[in-house]
């Protein structure tokens, strides 16, 4: 918990958020409503004060509202624009304190602990917020308390200077059904609820009710989550004296470009589109736009590309402010520079060059295949038309070198102690096996006509490590591979 200073939380609630947003741009004198289509009916989502005074309510069907009030002006709701507007307001609110979070779709919550004195006190700060919101054309209700829950309760249900315990239970951010049920029990205010026995309440209404009560009372903390600002990739410079020469503008652009590229580098981003805005002394501004073929953040490469656009700019009486913004950025990870790293492009180029000499089909790669038959446990595919796959299964050692079976002399099911292979006389030092592999009945294969095979790994005293197999159904011994 906080030591020394009492925590103060301000809750800002815009009761007519959606309609205020629209009316700010286009004021309407008469009744006005925002409609939202839900369950196949147009319902009133938000409305202005005039409409409310005429008896319209939220959630009323739009057809009924039109019947009540024929001159109702309406507009469909735009929740996306509302969210964007709320984000703007959130950013504006950070000038009261840094700790600002959203509260639902039409509210903000500010943890103003320790920043009220900057405005001359809490009351002055709230008055300032209220007056600025009024100037912006927004209806605003403020609540200020020691906890977030209490601030919310004051903002939504508070009328004057009453205590938190006097507010209705609905001020605890509860569902409507819970509120109704509590009222039926006779628990009308928060004070009633706080004095009631907790265990039956928890049993009947679940843990949420008591959680919200405790949060409002301050016995369970509820932090305000500030949102992280998305990085803005823009820099600007204001000049004491206007400039007009191309070299000066280019020099200033270079000075702006370096910090911008540093910032892009920190965020591992690259600019795809850059806008250079040159503001003239006479308040006119001109823009130079640069579109790049690939994301880039190297100032030495970007700067010369601006030259052409800057030369076309009419400086007029001089330019006194320059702003450079990367309007479109794309992820550009940090890359290793040097010859050790091969890019896929370089490899593809090599494949193409080799392919032109020996045929693209002859540049191949191994791909895993689902089979126990040694020859079919991998596929060989042209590298140009396949992607590498590393899903290899490694159950038992397999030879590095596989060749067509070569018969050797052997008479029993046990591996021969001495045998001749490729004109070499070999002695078995160690035999590991057998590993029985049965032919795949669904794929007739001439080589596997002799039936199941018992594979043995033979380590000879001469050093060679061979892969032998015995065919018990058709007695015979063969060498098929070498673990070199």
């Amino acid at each position, binding site marked *: 918990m906080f030591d020394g200073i009492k925590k103060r939380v301000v809750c800002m609630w815009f009761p007519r958020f959606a309609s205020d947003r629209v009316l700010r741009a286009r004021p309407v004198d008469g009744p006005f409503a925002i409609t939202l289509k839900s369950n196949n009916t147009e319902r009133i989502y938000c409305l202005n004060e005039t409409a409310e005074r005429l008896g319209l309510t939220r959630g009323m069907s739009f057809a009924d509202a039109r019947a009540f009030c024929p001159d109702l002006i309406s507009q469909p709701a735009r929740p996306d624009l509302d969210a964007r507007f709320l984000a703007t307001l959130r950013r504006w609110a950070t000038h009261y304190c840094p700790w600002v979070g959203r509260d639902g779709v039409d509210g903000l919550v500010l943890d103003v602990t320790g920043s009220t004195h900057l405005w001359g006190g809490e009351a002055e700060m709230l008055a300032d917020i209220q007056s600025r919101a009024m100037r912006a054309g927004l209806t605003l209700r403020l609540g200020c308390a020691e906890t977030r829950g209490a601030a919310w309760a004051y903002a939504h249900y508070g009328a004057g200077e009453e205590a938190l315990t006097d507010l209705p239970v609905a001020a605890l951010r509860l569902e409507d059904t819970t509120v109704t049920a509590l009222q039926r029990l006779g628990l009308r205010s928060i004070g009633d609820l706080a004095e009631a026995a907790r265990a039956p309440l928890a049993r009947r209404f679940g843990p949420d009710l008591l959680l919200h009560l405790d949060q409002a009372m301050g016995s369970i903390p509820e932090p305000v989550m500030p949102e992280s600002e998305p990085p803005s990739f823009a820099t600007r410079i204001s000049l004491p004296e206007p400039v007009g020469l191309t070299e000066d503008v280019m020099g200033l652009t270079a000075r702006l470009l370096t910090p911008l590229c540093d910032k892009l580098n920190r965020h591992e981003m690259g600019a795809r589109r850059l806008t250079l805005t040159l503001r003239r002394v006479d308040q006119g501004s001109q823009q130079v736009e640069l579109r790049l073929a690939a994301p880039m953040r190297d100032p030495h490469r970007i700067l010369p590309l601006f030259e052409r656009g800057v030369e076309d700019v009419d400086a007029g009486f001089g330019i006194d402010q320059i702003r450079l913004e990367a309007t479109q950025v794309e992820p550009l990870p940090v890359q290793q520079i040097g010859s050790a790293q091969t890019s896929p492009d370089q490899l593809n180029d090599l494949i193409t060059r080799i392919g032109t000499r020996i045929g693209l089909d002859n540049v191949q790669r191994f791909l895993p295949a689902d089979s126990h038959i040694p020859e079919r446990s991998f596929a060989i595919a042209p590298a140009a038309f396949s992607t590498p796959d590393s899903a290899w299964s490694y159950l038992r050692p397999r*030879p590095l070198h596989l060749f*067509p079976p070569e018969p050797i002399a052997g008479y029993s099911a046990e591996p021969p102690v001495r045998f001749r292979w490729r004109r070499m006389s070999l002695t078995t030092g160690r035999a590991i096996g057998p590993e029985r592999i049965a032919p795949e009945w669904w794929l007739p294969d001439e080589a596997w006509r002799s039936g199941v095979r018992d594979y043995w790994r033979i380590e000879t005293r*001469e050093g060679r490590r061979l892969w032998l197999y015995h065919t018990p159904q058709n007695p015979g011994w063969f060498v098929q591979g070498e673990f070199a």
Partner: protein
Amino acid sequence: MGLRTMCAGMCQLCLTPIYMLDIASHRSLIAARRCSCYVPIMRVDFHTVFPLRRARVHEVYGPGSMSFAAMAAAGACLWIRESWLSDTLTPQGLLPMFDPALLLLARPKDQTDALAVAEEALKDGALPFVVLEITRPLNLREGRRLQLAAKAGGTTGLCIIPEGMGSNATDTRWRATPVFDAAEEDSTLMRWEIKRNKSGTLGAWNVRWDQKARRVHVVSPVRE
């Protein structure tokens, strides 16, 4: 360890050819460190030759040459093998060494094409390692061209040669033979001998492949 193997042709102290030396007296000279250009004369260290020197082409022969190539590459490589060869390299066999997805296989129809592909790949440098299976001896020009290509691309080449088909242009020539390991099952014990070394002395080691660390371990120095 005999002096002959240590010096391999000439004394490293005074660069006198070995056949001109009185071995016994020279040995005492070394013991007294009286040569002014004294560098410790010892057998060439494995780690100075084994990750094969970059930007050079090397050769290997013997029954263990395929695994030598796989262990030397141990990563992205191009393996050039003529298409008429009926035996194959298996990816499962490569698995203990490296991920077979890193391997590219080129199947040229004859050795001329194989050499052209090898030169192209060595010069390009997109793949750091190129293995070339040779079926007929290289002449000096071909060997030299490969060396120059490797130098240009900064890549390593390795020719798997049949015994006795070595080229004079090679940087090192190795002989790899598997060795029976009486102590351990499924062993990868091998004897690697360096038979020719343009910039160093010769040596022989018993090595095995450590599958976990994916590197070659020298088991124990081989006694002559």
